[in-house]
């Protein structure tokens, strides 16, 4: 299969590979996919106030899956949570020129963003309740 130049670029020079501390209350972690399906994405966001300050990923998957998650980290950085939730898989498909058989990679990246934000929100909600209790 021939890959687009953008997929190759993200694959060869992935942006924001790595991990953030799961213990950090400002970090939301999303893990989506399954090993037996051939794709697992872990996306982590560090949120200050309402702004996504940092994003890191690790992905088990094909070149398109790695490129999709690399692109996702690039796109969410500096965005507000609300803005990040607006990112659609179709935008990733378009940007990376993914063929139809690779659309599921973009779906996974969108899911990873949503899962990471959901995790962040549940964590901060927990922090708030604890604070209430402490009062």
């Amino acid at each position: 299969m021939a890959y687009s130049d953008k997929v190759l670029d993200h694959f060869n020079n992935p942006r924001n590979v790595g991990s953030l501390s799961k213990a950090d209350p400002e970090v939301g972690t999303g893990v989506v996919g399954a090993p037996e399906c051939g794709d697992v994405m872990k996306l982590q966001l560090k949120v200050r106030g309402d702004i996504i300050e940092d994003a890191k990923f690790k992905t088990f998957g094909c070149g398109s899956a790695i490129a999709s998650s690399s692109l996702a980290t690039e796109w969410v950085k500096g965005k507000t949570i609300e803005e990040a939730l607006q990112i659609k898989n179709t935008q990733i498909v378009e940007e990376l020129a993914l063929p139809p058989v690779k659309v599921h990679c973009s779906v996974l990246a969108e899911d990873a963003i949503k899962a990471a934000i959901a995790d962040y929100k549940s964590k901060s909600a927990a922090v708030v309740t604890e604070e209430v209790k402490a009062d």
Partner: protein
Amino acid sequence: MGDVEVDRNRSLELVISSVVAQNEQGNNEERLMSVETVMAKMPIYLDNHATTPMDPRVFEAMTPYFLGSFGNAASRNHAFGWVAEKAVETAREQIAALIGANSKEIVFTSGATESDNIAIKGVIEMYAEKGNHIITAKTEHKAVLDTCKYLERLGKAEVTYLDPDTDGRISVESIQAAITDKTVLIAVMAANNEIGTIAPLKEIGALAKEKGIFFFTDAAQAVGRIPLDVNELGIDIMAISGHKIYGPKGIGALYVRRRRPRVRLTPVIHGGGHERGMRSGTLPVPLCVGLGKACEIAGAEMEEENKRIIALREKLHQGILEKLDYVSLNGHPEHRLPNNLNISFAYVEGEGLMMAMKDLAVSSGSACTSASLEPSYVLKALGVGDELAHSSIRYGLGRFTTEEEIDFAITQSVEAVSKLREMSPLYEMAQEGIDLATVQWQVPHE
């Protein structure tokens, strides 16, 4: 780096188009030089199960039969026909000699796919009165499996698809247990194209003979790579392919036993009655000559070649094992084609891995490489989990593989796996001591 990739593709296009241009000018020496230039720009070829490069000696033997000696081997009344017929009969003898057969037992076909079709459909139709049951295995090539499924759909055959053991071998006991009074054919491949596992041919042959059932083996991967004698092994019908043994594409053969027992086959292609009525159609003389020559070379050089290839294969395997952990072998450790190494690199995905090993032409059982989005059905049948099937790479060495290439393949494989593991959430979890089997995975919303 992305730009480098693009440059590389572009330069490849340029080289290829210049070769095409020189071919048109017809200067042989320049053409051969350019082929070398192309090869220098291409990845290292380690996909010899998919196809093999043609041996230049085969090419040389074929060339006279494209131009001057263009006759039809079936033309009985003039010298053009006689020359062609002689060439074809020599080729038939060369093929027969490699497998211990008589040249009258060799039928030319277009390849192993067609041979598989003729063998299975031919037996089922010819012996319909005797029975309709086929015993085969889940690890067979699609040319066998889809032919069986087709006959099932038509209601012409009932088929048992046996499970292999975890090394990919079909046990004689499982075949024996599946035999019914309707069984007319046992179809078990000589060597598997993905994992290289070699079947217990002699035992199967003996069982088939004892029960009066025909034994057909798809030997596309085995002929010319391991010694095969149809009489010693009790094989009644055997499929052979040209392009897997350094011969041309578009040619193959079917061995059809003539005595003890005599096998008769209903043809798939009807017509002028060529090939004793089993496969009509004017013979492609240059291709027949090429297949013959390829068999002759294989017979003469197999022993030496295998020593060399096994040493290289072991070097590759050991070189990888020395540098990487979580590597597992797929297929049988001993009953295995000399040129096959199929391994799973846990926690990295095969297609991504092939992309990272960009200077190696290999293949993977990962779903992403197939149209079906299912990982290799062969690895699945062995009980290799889907996860490890996705992580598998098949290295197929060949006659022209060099030690330098293997050294390079080790380095690039190790680098690629290490790089992707650094990026792999599964590897990270494994390092943290998390048992991946206990994780609740979240599948995507579509």
